[in-house]
């Protein structure tokens, strides 16, 4: 089992460009979560899916952030018109439904 796979590990974008982050959950896990990690804010919840359906996106900045889970094997987080304040480590986690989360290594997004 390779664990939760996130790609790319690092992404550098210019201000105003789009960034798409990918997450492959552990096979058989029914829930996928996205978090954002910064020094100042710590770990912030963004959104999560259960059985591919969006359940809670209360942490998502509404205007430029979107997340999808088109099939059970991957989820994407898209940030349009990236801004310097979007720079963070974006963490994806999956769960078999028993509350324990398994995290990926994260994608470090740097917006110049």
């Amino acid at each position: 089992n390779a664990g939760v796979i996130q790609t790319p590990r690092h992404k550098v974008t210019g201000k105003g460009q789009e960034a798409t982050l990918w997450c492959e959950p552990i096979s058989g896990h029914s829930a996928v979560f996205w978090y954002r990690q910064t020094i100042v804010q710590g770990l912030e919840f963004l959104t999560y899916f259960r059985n591919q359906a969006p359940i809670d996106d209360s942490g998502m900045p509404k205007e430029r952030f979107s997340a999808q889970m088109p099939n059970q094997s991957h989820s994407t987080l898209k940030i349009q018109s990236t801004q310097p304040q979007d720079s963070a480590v974006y963490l994806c986690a999956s769960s078999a439904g028993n509350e324990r989360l398994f995290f990926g290594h994260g994608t470090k997004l740097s917006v110049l």
Partner: protein
Amino acid sequence: AQSVTQPDARVTVSEGASLQLRCKYSYSATPYLFWYVQYPRQGLQLLLKYYSGDPVVQGVNGFEAEFSKSNSSFHLRKASVHWSDSAVYFCAVINTGGADRLTFGKGTQLIIQP
């Protein structure tokens, strides 16, 4: 809304000494409680969890935590730390139904001095 407070952003301990990392939660009922650890350049890993029963739960690598309902706390302890324990430790809470997302504290960076 549920919240988690880790009052110490950084804790420095000498190798071989004992450790306590503090965690306080705010929640209307008794939630499920977790401690996760993040080693440098790695993802978060589960150390231990509390669902119910014995308030002292054992985790990996000699860590344990004690749940106190009266104090709304879930402090992490270790009797003798090793240099490899240097990491950031996160306390987290989820509602007992599980149909919700994990809420994390801001983390405590543990620094082990030789």
